[in-house]
């Protein structure tokens, strides 16, 4: 799924546009715990969209380290200027939707974005 499509589906605004708009997002992953994100998406995967309510720069750092090209902030949360700045520097597209995480996931799932297929092993 292209970034433009995601924007259309969840009626998102673009907070930071520098990045790879050609990327074809295959999976969605929603989490507010960055350490969970690090744990689950730690293996080599195709491009993932991170849906989260975390708005501090850590979310950009996490995305960078995991090669996540696009971050979608849910619940229309206000976002720190430092986060946008860092996203610009690191080339990560930042989007924001007014929908809650559950609805955001539902809409994207309906439109064909898949949940990551890997099983979690502790």
């Amino acid at each position: 799924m292209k970034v433009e499509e995601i924007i259309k589906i969840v009626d998102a605004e673009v907070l930071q546009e520098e990045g790879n708009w050609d990327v074809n997002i295959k999976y969605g992953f929603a989490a507010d715990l960055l350490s969970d994100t690090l744990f689950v998406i730690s293996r080599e995967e195709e491009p993932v969209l991170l849906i989260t309510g975390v708005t501090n720069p850590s979310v950009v750092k996490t995305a960078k380290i995991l090669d996540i090209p696009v971050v979608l902030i849910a619940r229309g949360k206000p976002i720190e200027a430092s986060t946008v700045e860092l996203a610009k520097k690191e080339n990560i597209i930042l989007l924001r939707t007014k929908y809650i995480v559950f609805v955001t996931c539902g809409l994207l799932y309906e439109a064909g974005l898949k949940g990551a297929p890997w099983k979690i092993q502790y």
Partner: protein
Amino acid sequence: MEDTILVLEFPIFGEDFDHLGDATLRIRESLLKALNTSILNGSIGREKEIVRKSGICLYEAEANIVIHAKFGFIKTILYKQKIVSIAKDIGPGINNLILALKPGYSTASEKARMLGFGAGMGLKNIEKISDFFFLTSTFGKGTYLLFEVWRNDNTFGGVKMKIRKLIEELKLEVLTNFKEEDLDKIVEKAYTCDLLSNVLSKAEEETTWITVQSNINVVGVATIKRIPIIIVTESNTPEEETLKKAELNSIIIARTKLSSFEVSGQLYNLLKKQN
């Protein structure tokens, strides 16, 4: 060491949540640059993957220092064959290492949790991703963590192969329950022998073991020699107890109808094949 390509070291301050991840990002950038310009450069995909692995582990380690310790440092050394990272801190230390490695167990502060950290996955995650993991801690003094991510390039002759691929290529029947990670382990050597004492004394560690034997002692030997997969030949059926013990030690037992000779021959050719 002559194989050293790059050494990077950053101080990390406790409670400095604003800069959490900066050191990791800088190390990540330097590693990518070094690997891209390195004459040892293998495939770009492979390099990206090991930098990614190192990055995740470093980020977790850095978060641990910021969340728990007063002061520490992380150091990353890029060798020709692997990336070694050390995270050392003056901090409270870990009271119970086994508990600390339990998924979900966390002593992180409310502040850390607010920022999205402290889910109690960090150490477990590093252990999962890295190829070598070492953790020691003195309660009340500090923690020392070392982990390695290996570069699996094919420059040492022969081909390294994931267990997943090996099972597929040799059409093996897997008898044990396994974790996904177990299939991602890499094998590059094999040893064919039915005498347990021989395997104990002569087989190299982390080798693939081909044998007609299937009794429980086989698992004992495999555990000691860190053998990730045992190929039981001539359709022998191991007992339930053997399989259970193997699962407990993350050892895969797979079966084939072929004789030891034939499987050895096939595997030899697979491991010899040039990419």
